[in-house]
């Protein structure tokens, strides 16, 4: 009886926590259940949500991608430079002096600019993944190096200056609404659906789980692991670039400094969502709930006007608590 209650708690525990948090939030702040706040909450959560989808893929194979925050910044500034008619040239100084709305001279026709940025994101993910795979170094270490490298590249690219001016369609990605739902949330939703379809209903997706769960067993049953170990990092890189582009739209500029530390929020969301850091266990559904829980906690702390520093402490404790609960459950299961 007791164990039944426990397993019920571990199956639906996240859901219960989410609902309890929503109830608590509406009690703590009368502002919570206003349309403006809910829209704000969901569009802020979407950015972390998109990153967390990519991170779920990576964590499923037992890896970790610390470079996503840097890729967000790099994608944003790369997009900015493309809009100002440059590919990879370092900018002359005059361009940073703000003289009203700038005239945009995109290098490529509009959707192609975005696709180019996404491809660069994919390339960065591919580099991390293939170094990790080829030299058998845990992706956490490789992506740590890439994190420093990409951030340095992004910031030195324009001397740390933001580049103002994004075209309307991109601002629409950040600020637009469809049926009253903010665009970022819709993008997040469609990415989630695509990811769920891929992971649950294709052979490719099931093989990612298989390789993540036990690489040796997977190889013995005829799966070539390299593809499945590099692909998740590519997904993660592309999705980070997506966030970078939408973020440029949100801020009206390409900014190399955004996204710092966002990787930890994404990791936290995935882990709260029940994915195991040793791979093979977890899913997009859990991650979405994890993102919502993280977002709720942020939102409520902001509504209650708690300072940034205690907020940071709280975030650290939440991450550790989620990991600890997971560790305790895992050890209980293994003792049975």
């Amino acid at each position, binding site marked *: 009886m007791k164990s039944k209650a426990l397993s019920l708690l571990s199956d639906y525990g996240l859901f219960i926590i989410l609902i309890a948090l929503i109830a608590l939030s509406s009690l703590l702040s009368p502002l919570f259940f206003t349309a403006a706040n809910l829209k704000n909450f969901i569009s802020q959560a979407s950015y972390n949500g998109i990153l967390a989808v990519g991170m779920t893929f990576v964590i499923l194979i037992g890896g970790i991608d610390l470079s996503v925050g840097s890729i967000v910044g790099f994608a944003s500034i790369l997009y900015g430079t493309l809009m100002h008619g440059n590919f990879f040239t370092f900018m002359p100084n005059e361009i940073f002096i703000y003289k009203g709305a700038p005239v945009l001279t995109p290098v490529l026709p509009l959707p192609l600019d975005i696709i180019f940025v996404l491809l660069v994101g994919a390339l960065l993910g591919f580099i991390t993944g293939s170094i990790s795979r080829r030299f058998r170094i845990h992706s956490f270490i490789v992506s740590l190096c890439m994190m420093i490298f990409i951030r340095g*590249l992004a910031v*030195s690219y324009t001397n740390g200056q933001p580049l103002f001016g994004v075209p309307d369609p991109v601002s629409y990605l950040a600020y637009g609404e469809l049926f009253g739902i903010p665009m970022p949330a819709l993008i997040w939703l469609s990415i989630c659906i695509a990811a769920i379809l891929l992971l649950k209903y294709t052979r490719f997706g099931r093989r990612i789980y298989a390789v993540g769960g036990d690489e040796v067993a997977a190889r013995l049953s005829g799966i070539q692991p390299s593809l499945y170990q590099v692909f998740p990092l590519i997904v993660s890189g592309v999705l980070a670039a997506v966030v970078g582009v939408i973020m440029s739209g949100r801020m009206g500029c390409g900014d190399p400094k955004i996204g710092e530390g966002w990787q930890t929020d994404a990791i936290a969301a995935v882990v709260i969502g029940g994915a195991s850091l040793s791979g093979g266990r977890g899913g997009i559904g859990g991650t979405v709930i994890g993102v919502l829980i993280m977002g709720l906690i942020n939102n409520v702390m902001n509504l209650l006007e708690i300072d940034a520093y205690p907020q940071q402490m709280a975030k650290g404790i939440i991450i550790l608590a989620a990991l600890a609960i997971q560790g305790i459950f895992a050890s209980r299961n293994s003792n049975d």
Partner: protein
Amino acid sequence: MNRLVKYITRDGGLSAILRYVVLLILIIIASIMAPGFLSMQNILNLLRSFSFLGFISLGMTFVILSGGIDLSVAAIFAFSGVLLGLFQHWGIYLGHVDKLSLLAPTPILFLIVLAVGSALGLINGLLITKLRITDFAATLGSMIFIRGFAFAISGGRTIFNLDEIALFMGRGMIGPVPFVAILFLVSVIVCAIVLRYTVFGKRLYAAGENPVVAKLSGINPQKYKIIVYTISGFFAALAGICMAGRLNVGEPRVAEGWELDAIAAVVIGGTSFAGGRGGVIKTVLGVIIIGLIRNLLSLMGILPDPQEMIMGLVLLFAVVFGSLGTRKGSLAHT
């Protein structure tokens, strides 16, 4: 070609020869670029500036030897400095900000700060062993928490002016030699002896190399995990105290990203991520190489941001080279 790679990387990391060649090249470039580079005065100065990174790299060596990783060291570093500052300005809570008001005699404050740093390391160790959180995830969480804590207790402010004894830790000289460098060298010698000639050291290597076998031969790997994280916390706190003395401030923003430099120093030195192979003398070499690279980049007038980019590449190369020659690398989970 394969044989060459095997030769260069035969001890599982960068071989000693390659590391000394890199060091020599760096020294030659530096002395060409800055004529006074090889003067006694400059060498002593460099010794001092390397010591701060050196302390946390020492602690990191223990952790990496055990097969773990500690991302929280820089946060503990900053936290310790802030704590020392607050202890010496206890009156901050009574309204007088600038005056020194010691909570206790300074040496006792040092002991308290060191104890707090060690306790934070101990907590890391307990999180990892008792709650079964992966090393890097646990220390990532505690890094965020401790840095936030350092900002919270100081209100994000810099605490200026420490007392004479604290300043001596960072700026003091014994004869021509900086005190902090002596402290660092003594720490290195103690650590090297502990690792090489004590039962503790030998068991630590065994537990890091293969926890399962160690456990079967009666060594409790978890106990060693807890101890190494405590050591790492201790050295981070020591570095924090010395840096506070050097800068004459308690500053919550100090040492951001230093955990990566420490990891790089340890790996470049030749300690393997897989655990159980390496040592502190190697790490000292790694610290000197990292310090020289940074020094050279500054000498060349390269701005901080491109410097970070280059350091990222250096770290990546070090990690890749370090993994050549080890069969399982560090893809294995700890």
